[in-house]
């Protein structure tokens, strides 16, 4: 049986890993390669690197650190940040990334999703979605890497999720912005509703604070993977302990 995935997320800015609360006020938490090594050794199932300012600055991630990460680690990793063309995607994948994740550029140009899937296969194409609650419904936000540039879109989250799947996305990472960085648990209701309309893998992001939050997001929302940053960076939760405990809770996990 396929294991549920535990995925540390490394927000990258200026070549270092940073972490903010509710997408603001970022502080440096460490070196990219050091953290990638540490998480690999601790049993992370996959890593995600977000160059959080690339999209709002209108530039793409540089590939030199992608190559350095690919040389060092032997687990899959995904790279996100301002990827707007087939050529940019190709250079990142050929540098050794296993998947690329696009967020704001997919909203700018939805045709990019299908073009990437046709060229590299759906399994390489992850769509990141920043979703914020407003008056009882959820809506997609754009350019969340920079609070001064963040803006609303016309998309309801559930409609956008269906749209990206129809266009050939291979996986969705749903960032529940209301929960981000506050450690009160994943947004189980929203994730369950998104799970219900997707036939591709769904990764939960935003809100992890305790081991129980991970168990619940797998058990209640049925997601394929759970992504978290601050609880891992601060060692508030250690991945080996988390995985051993989840196994006692009958969650299929790779040890």
């Amino acid at each position, binding site marked *: *049986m396929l294991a549920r995935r535990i995925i540390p997320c490394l927000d990258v800015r200026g070549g270092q890993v940073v972490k903010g609360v509710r997408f603001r006020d970022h502080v440096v938490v460490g070196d990219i390669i050091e953290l990638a090594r540490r998480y690999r050794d601790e049993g992370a199932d996959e890593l995600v690197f977000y160059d959080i300012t690339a999209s709002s600055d209108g530039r793409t991630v540089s590939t030199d650190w992608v190559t350095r990460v690919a040389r060092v680690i032997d687990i899959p990793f995904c790279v996100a940040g301002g990827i707007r063309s087939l050529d940019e995607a190709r250079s990142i994948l050929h540098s050794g990334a*296993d998947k690329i994740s696009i967020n704001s550029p997919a909203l700018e140009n939805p045709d990019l999703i299908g073009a990437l899937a*046709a*060229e590299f296969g759906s*399994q390489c194409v992850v769509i990141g979605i920043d979703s914020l609650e407003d008056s009882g419904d959820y809506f997609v936000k754009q350019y969340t890497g920079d609070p001064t540039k963040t803006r609303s879109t016309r998309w309801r989250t559930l409609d956008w999720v269906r749209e990206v799947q129809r266009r050939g996305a291979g*996986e969705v990472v749903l960032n529940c912005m209301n929960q981000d960085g506050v450690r009160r648990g994943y947004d189980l209701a929203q994730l369950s509703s998104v799970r219900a309309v997707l036939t591709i893998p769904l990764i939960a992001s935003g809100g992890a604070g305790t081991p129980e939050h991970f168990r619940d997001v797998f058990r209640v929302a049925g997601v*394929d993977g759970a992504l978290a940053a601050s609880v891992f960076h601060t060692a508030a939760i250690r991945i080996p302990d988390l995985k051993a405990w989840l196994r006692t809770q009958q969650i299929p996990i790779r040890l």
Partner: protein
Amino acid sequence: MLAIVDSGGANIASVKFALERLGVPGELTTDPEVIRAAERVILPGVGSAAEGMKRLQQRGLVDCVRNLRQPTLGICLGMQLLFEESAEGPTRTLGLLPGRVARLSNSPGIQVPHMGWNTLRVERASPLLSGFAGDTRFYFVHSFAAPLNEFTLASAEHGSRFAAVVQRGNLYGVQFHPERSGAAGAQLLRNFLALT
């Protein structure tokens, strides 16, 4: 010398780096002479079957790969191309193994692509699979898969059972990504490097 067929797919750098970590430099090449002369050959591949075959045809490598006699390992799409046909397209593939690669079907709780760490069930013992426990997991990421047949060394299950590791003579194939499967993947690559 180990040749990595530069089929233009996306996981080529990962395969090369995985071999470097094992102290075995692989030569990325599209030169049929170099490939024919190599002690071992790896045929990586990520992307669609049609694109994969087109790249082999453009580089004039179809006959070269068909006639290899040394230990050869197809990875992911590289394994699927060893079969007769892929439903992806559909596309005529190399025809070195019997059968048609089909799309995995999704159902409640079974998402496609099959993405993540899964276990194997050994169907036939092989040196390629030595040293693994029953709960050893490998990293899979694919939407199409090959059927079980007499050449299946190990199967995996995602909705239904499919061929995860195959062998016919000198030709081996793995549906998962050993270059991205942690210590287990490194062990599988070492097993491949030790094949005679």
